[in-house]
């Protein structure tokens, strides 16, 4: 067990524990704040996989953007912190079937996936490679994604104006 293993388990523990807290917590603002640690842990895992660009994009998009928006939404919504989140058990049989199927699919993909077991020995910057790929091979998809985001933006603005 070397240092990278310890760091990996640390980040994995942060991610899993905070994700558990997000789901089980009854206070919605607490859930949103725990999500911060989940995103942060995932970013750390990306760094260990030598995906430097993805790790920082994870931080900038999820922590700097989505989480802050989420918190704003939660905090600006009137009396949302007083809402009691109801937890109970209904429709036991269909739920068990659905969850069982989903868990089976997840488990199958976990077992069958070709996992990278060793930490990358030699890391190199990935930004340039990603940029070249996006602009040359996946240009159409890249631009289409941009248009989809633009549509969402215009839609949000037009709903807000009403």
């Amino acid at each position, binding site marked *: 067990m070397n*240092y990278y293993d310890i760091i990996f388990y640390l980040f994995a523990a942060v991610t899993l524990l905070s994700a558990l807290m997000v789901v089980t917590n009854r206070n919605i*603002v*607490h859930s949103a*704040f725990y999500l*911060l640690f989940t995103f*942060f842990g995932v970013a750390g895992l990306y760094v260990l996989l030598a995906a*430097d*660009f993805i790790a*920082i*994009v994870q*931080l*900038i998009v999820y*922590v*700097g*953007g989505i*989480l*802050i928006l989420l*918190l*704003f939404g939660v*905090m*600006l919504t009137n009396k949302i912190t007083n809402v009691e989140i109801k937890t109970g058990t209904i429709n036991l049989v269909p739920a068990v079937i659905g969850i069982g199927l989903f868990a089976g699919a997840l488990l199958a993909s976990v077992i069958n996936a070709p996992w990278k077991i060793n930490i990358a020995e030699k890391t190199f*910057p990935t*930004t340039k490679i990603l940029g070249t790929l996006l602009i040359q091979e996946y240009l159409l998809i890249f631009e289409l994604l941009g248009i989809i985001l633009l549509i969402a933006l215009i839609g949000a603005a037009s709903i807000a104006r009403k």
Partner: protein
Amino acid sequence: MIYDFFYNLTGSVIISGTVVALLPLFAFILPFALFAVLLERKVAGHMQDRLGPMRVGYHGILQTVADIIKLIQKEDIIAKDNDKLFFNIAPVLTFAGSYAAFAVIPFSSIFLGADIDLGIFYVIAVTGLVVAGILMAGWASNNKYSLLGAMRSAAQIVSYEIPTILIVLSIVMLTGTMSLYDLSENQTAYFWNWNIFGGPNLDIQKFLLIPFMLIGFIIIYISTLAEVNRTPFDIPEAESELVSGYHTEYSGMKFAMFFLAEYANMFAVSAILVILFFGGYQSPLGYLGNTLNIPWLIPIEQFFWFIFKGIFFVFVQMWLRWTLPRLRVDQLMTASWKYLIPIAFVNLLIIGVISLI
């Protein structure tokens, strides 16, 4: 690099890593905060025709030391209805966010925590933690002034991040690198090679770039000023409206953490400006070490110049604080969305066209 030096000295990955990680804090941020708080009070005093702190030590130079001792002794008050867990995490998170930026800032060509390829992008990303910490502090305080201050602060930081990123993007586009070390190394000695004067290549492009670099610098200075919540953009902690914003409920060392984070942030944004536009750690007038043929003197000179330029911009921030009145919320948002972002965008396009020449 400094990590290799400590690794050769101690032979342990853990010890050398810890030392390198803590070095900016103990060698720089804590002394800087002590100095900057005193400087701020002295600047404020002299601008208002007062003397500032005078009692502790010669002309009050030990005032901040006395203040720190007072803060350590203070009782740590947590009100009954505060959200205990997040109330305690928030100051740490805020400080961690601003301290994380120092990991990639090159203080001199050898004093650099990590030379990562995505330096400037990383700095922009980790400042997101500061916003989350501020929101957490405001919400956990369970106090309307704190919450309002936190919301204003987060809205302001998020809006002013856009012009900052646009200007950073134009520099990255021009130089083709995001590493803060490479950005500093490119602008080699003598001040006319700095990016504000069009970069190190002497051709037509350099002279065309100068006015647009100046515009870019002014925009990024204004927006970083707003990102660290300084006057004229200090509505998050407007004393006359909100007591003191998101840290109203904090006392003792937790308050000190916010204070430290604020001063660390002030230096971090000044350092980023220096690296982007003013040559980073490069000396403006050539190195004494080269003239006298003493190679080990060069990194020390670089360290001096970096600190000097950084503190100069921190001083300008203080100067503006005691000169300008505070903006209203609507004026603040107008300034960002209607003026800074369009100008920054056009500036980006023009710099792009020039860099194609």
